[in-house]
């Protein structure tokens, strides 16, 4: 596959992520912050996010596993996850967080647990997608090309 084809594939793949709602405009803002002085910015922030999200998902699991669920604590974790997911543009994860918070307010353990499952699913999905994205970018860089600037 030549460079142009690789670049085309990257653009198409990225567009699909936006189209399917995995990513939103905030991700674009992140990309725009990346430059020669911060060449790995997006990768670093995304990595930081997944470290955070994994930790929060684990803590949510523990919190919901209690006899008497501390919904304030659960809500605080979800609030954090909502904040960080929205700041990297992980739209689907953020959307689950919004619904999750409503169930926290209702103190509905059953529904909260379902939301947690949903969160794990969406988190894992977007992680895989972004890993693919970074891999495609790396292939282009290794072949001596540059990452095409797109806007979505």
């Amino acid at each position, binding site marked *: 596959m030549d460079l142009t084809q690789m670049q085309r594939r990257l653009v198409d793949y990225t567009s699909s992520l*936006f*189209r399917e709602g995995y990513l*939103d405009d*905030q991700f*674009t*803002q*992140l990309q*725009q*912050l990346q430059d020669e002085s*911060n060449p790995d*910015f997006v990768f*670093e*922030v995304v990595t*930081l*996010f997944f470290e*955070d999200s994994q930790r929060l998902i684990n803590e949510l699991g523990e919190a919901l596993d209690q006899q008497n669920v501390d919904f304030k604590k659960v809500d*605080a974790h979800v*609030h*954090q996850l*909502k*904040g*960080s997911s*929205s*700041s*990297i*543009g992980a739209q689907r994860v953020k959307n689950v967080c919004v619904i999750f918070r409503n169930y926290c307010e209702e103190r509905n353990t059953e529904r909260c647990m379902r939301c947690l499952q949903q969160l794990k699913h969406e988190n894992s999905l977007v992680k895989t997608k972004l890993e693919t994205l970074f891999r495609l970018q790396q292939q282009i860089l290794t072949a001596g090309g540059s990452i095409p600037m*797109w*806007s*979505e």
Partner: protein
Amino acid sequence: MVSNDRKEQNHVESCKVGPMKNSLKGLRILLAEDTSVLQKVATIMLEKLGAMVSAVGDGLQAVEALKYMSTAEEENQSTNILCLTAIGGVMNLSIYITLALRQVGKSLSCDASREMPKMDGYEAIKAIIRFEEGTKSHIPIVALTAHTMSYDEAKYLEVGMDAYLTKPIDCKLMLPTILVLTKREGSLT
């Protein structure tokens, strides 16, 4: 959500720093935000615009940082410090404290800052406002809030913040807000 001419739009309105690179040069910003991802993104955004950013993760660190920064800027009449603080959760403390610093200058003692968590937020703010007024420097405070604010958060805003930005931070809104508060609108051209 995505329109066809977005590509063009993005080029014009985007957060591409380019010409605005030094808009915030000389400005010291205290960023109080306990979520690491948000802290990192906001720090880079602000540094790209030329600001010097001190990032802290809790209220007590925020007090120390602000005291240090205001001491350094003592002689300067113009606003060279701005505080950008998340509100809610562990950052509630930083609101009381930054408001205190604004109302009473640099005289906030360690004891007072330790007492605040025991006070109800709104009571704390009212108590702070009862302190003597008149400070040499006014540190603008911008709150970072979630789209849906709690009643408490709305109260804090009403009582003492200069402006607020919703999270995730939109560069296009953040820059003009900061420029206006630090009286640097001229830098936009």
